[in-house]
């Protein structure tokens, strides 16, 4: 048997408003509600609604043989709840079929794991709460932001009670081994599913590239590539951004027609089926242990975090944000804490990436800034405003704090 595991990741950030040094201390808003709604409207119309409809039809018309899994960030769910409840409803309809698995992740699509384990745990629980509240569902398998993963993180997630975790099937980790098996990470018993990046990226990145030798990618051609895994694999993990369907690959590329047909092509072979990560973990035995001593992600050619933390402006901005953790938590102000957490959304640091040109196309996607330096300046001005708010609150909470030197901006 060969099980296909299709997993889609959905996320849209709260982009920051252009925030000048002259806005500090003036109660100016941090987030560009107008622009965020404008982007979201476009994605909902072009991607989420049409794709969810196709996925629901596929499940119904295959009598539940087609299965799919999602991770949906808390910050996206928040935005959808507010402006597009119909999208929440369409996810609910999918979950109701019983053929859909929802994965766990950080609510804020953050890099918290690297800076504060405590904050990381809190954000996973916030996301869990949100999923329960919206869909009456409790995830059992975890994926971290940008599919970042290492052995140590697996231990942490295993201790939190999760039975599975997702990672990139990077060549330098796999070596001679195939991504098409269930594994265990070194040092923990949790189930590890690794992305088959070649077959995943055929859809996510190369689908509409005329210079690619696989172009045009037809459903039967793709199914034949997947069938090649018979005999040297048990699963094929197709992990990609949800926005692949309709946004990264526009409707005009034929991506929706492809999505409508390829599951049938796969199911033509009676030795194939679709499974969700939990089902795979329950039904397969790990083929061995994989060692991820360092962080590996699914991003760029480097498969690391250099697009988020590769340069000094990114590093200094994120350090500044996490340095406020203790004070923010101590103040216990809901709005302040939420604003601080929204500043942790990884996209803010992605926009500060300066390693452009090679991966430039993807980096420019929905980037509200003219250049990475503007992204940094805006973020730092907001952090300074947040610091002022912290100082004000501290003085209110305890008059003893009044002696503390105020932060000069």
């Amino acid at each position, binding site marked *: 048997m060969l099980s296909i595991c299709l997993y889609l990741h959905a996320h849209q950030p709260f982009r920051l408003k252009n925030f000048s*040094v002259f806005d500090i201390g003036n109660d100016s808003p941090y987030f560009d509600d107008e622009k965020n709604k404008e982007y979201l409207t476009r994605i909902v119309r072009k991607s989420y609604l049409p794709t969810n409809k196709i996925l629901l039809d596929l499940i119904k018309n295959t009598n539940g043989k087609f299965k799919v899994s999602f991770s949906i960030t808390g910050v996206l769910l928040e935005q959808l709840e507010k402006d597009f409840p119909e999208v929440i409803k369409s996810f609910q309809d999918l979950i109701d079929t019983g053929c859909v698995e929802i994965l766990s992740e950080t609510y804020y699509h953050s890099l918290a794991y690297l800076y504060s384990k405590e904050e990381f745990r809190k954000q996973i629980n916030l996301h869990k709460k949100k999923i329960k509240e919206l869909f009456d569902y409790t995830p059992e398998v975890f994926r971290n932001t940008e599919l970042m993963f290492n052995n140590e993180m697996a231990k942490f997630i295993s201790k939190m009670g999760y039975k599975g975790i997702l990672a990139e099937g990077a060549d330098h980790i796999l070596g001679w081994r195939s991504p098409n098996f269930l594994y265990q990470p070194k040092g923990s018993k949790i189930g590890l599913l690794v992305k088959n990046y070649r077959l995943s990226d055929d859809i996510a990145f190369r689908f509409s590239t005329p210079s690619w030798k696989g172009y045009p990618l037809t459903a039967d051609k793709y199914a034949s590539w997947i069938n090649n895994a018979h005999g040297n694999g048990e699963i094929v993990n197709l992990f990609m951004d949800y926005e692949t369907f309709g946004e990264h690959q526009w409707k005009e590329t034929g991506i929706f027609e492809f999505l409508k047909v390829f599951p049938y092509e796969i199911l033509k072979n009676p030795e194939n089926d679709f499974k969700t990560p939990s089902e795979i973990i329950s039904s397969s035995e790990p083929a061995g242990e994989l060692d991820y001593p360092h962080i590996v992600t699914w991003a760029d050619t480097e498969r690391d975090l250099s697009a988020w933390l590769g340069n000094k402006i990114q590093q200094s901005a994120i350090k500044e944000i996490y340095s406020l953790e203790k004070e923010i938590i101590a103040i216990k102000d809901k709005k302040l804490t939420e604003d601080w957490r929204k500043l942790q959304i990884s996209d803010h640091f992605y926009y500060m990436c300066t390693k452009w040109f090679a991966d430039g196309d993807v980096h420019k996607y929905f980037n509200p800034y003219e*250049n990475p330096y503007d992204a940094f300046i805006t973020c730092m001005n907001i952090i300074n405003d947040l610091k002022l708010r912290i100082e004000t609150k501290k003085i209110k909470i305890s008059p003893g704090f009044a002696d503390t030197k105020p932060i000069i901006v």
Partner: protein
Amino acid sequence: MNLNHQLKILMFGWEFPPHNSGGLGVACKGLANAIVKQGATISFVLPKKMNCDNSPFKFIFPDNNSDGLEIKNIDSLLSAYVTSESYQKLLKNNKENGIYGYDLFNEVRRYGQEARKIALKEKFDIIHAHDWLSIPAGIEAKKVSNKPLIVQVHATEFDRTGGNNVNQQVYEIEKQGLSMADKIITVSKFTKKKVVRHYHINPEKIEVVYNAIKQEPFISPKRNFQSLKKGNKKIVLFLGRITLQKGPDYFLRTAKKVLERNSDVFFIVAGSGDMKFQMIEESASLGIADKVLFTDFLRGEDLISAYQSADLFVMPSVSEPFGLTPLESLLQKTPVLISKQSGVSEILSHSLKADFWDIDEMANKILSVLKYPALCQCLSENGNKEVKEISWQDSAIKCLKIYNQVLA
């Protein structure tokens, strides 16, 4: 066999380093030398005031490194950035030699006639004229030789005047040259748009060839501004002609905004120009005279020293067809904030950009660079790397391609 070996270019310019007063001469020299390196030959004709010498032009071979580049001078009072007023002053001081024209435009026409004589004697395939002063010369050369004319626009009258008080005679000369040119080169897309809009030229006739910068080894001048920086003071630098086009007034108003939030900053205004005294007064009336330092036009090591001492270089030009100074600054590893109304902003990714009129945004960016060492360092390192990849060779190759297209 290099096809460019046969190519001979008759080039008309205004100035040539070391006798330059701005970026135009630097750009002409950079481009001419690089074209020659590609195998073509150039006769470069320049106006030059030549005392005690009655011959109308003179052959000089300025340095042995540039085989194939021959400088020819026409005795004239014309110089780069000359205006009708400044020409009258020059003429007064040079009365003893009766050959010069009675006003600027008369002199430009006379220069054209002298150029005609050169064109009759010389053998060449193509004519390349830089900016309005050399346009009449280029046109005369084209008339007598029937060879194609390339007009390169480094700045239009609209850039020089900021769009106010455009000199009609200059405009007419530019318009005539652009119309008669077989091909036009502009130093940026920004300038191409201006040429299309203000001179009604078909955009297909215009090619963009960006300027570049000569890569010099890094030096540490002995004389510097370091003493100003004692006590962790910062330096923000303006360097250029102090004229309307360069936006010195926006620089001062931005300085005022910055100083309201951070008083540990010196603003250096380096250069000369017709707005200098006005700017000195302006800094006094803004109440920031103690924080704004004016220096003369800087050359050589002093120029390098100014760039190196600065924490940030600002070019707030109202209209800058290209803008060489940000490249010079980045070569010295000093980050730059440049006006969006500039050609150089089209090729510099690793720079801060703002509209010249947006003093709040400029102040926001200046304050950020001065406050966050990480920002300063990233802009400096990446900007320096980017500038090191800009070469005159690429500009010359593009230029030669244009010549060959026109000649084909």
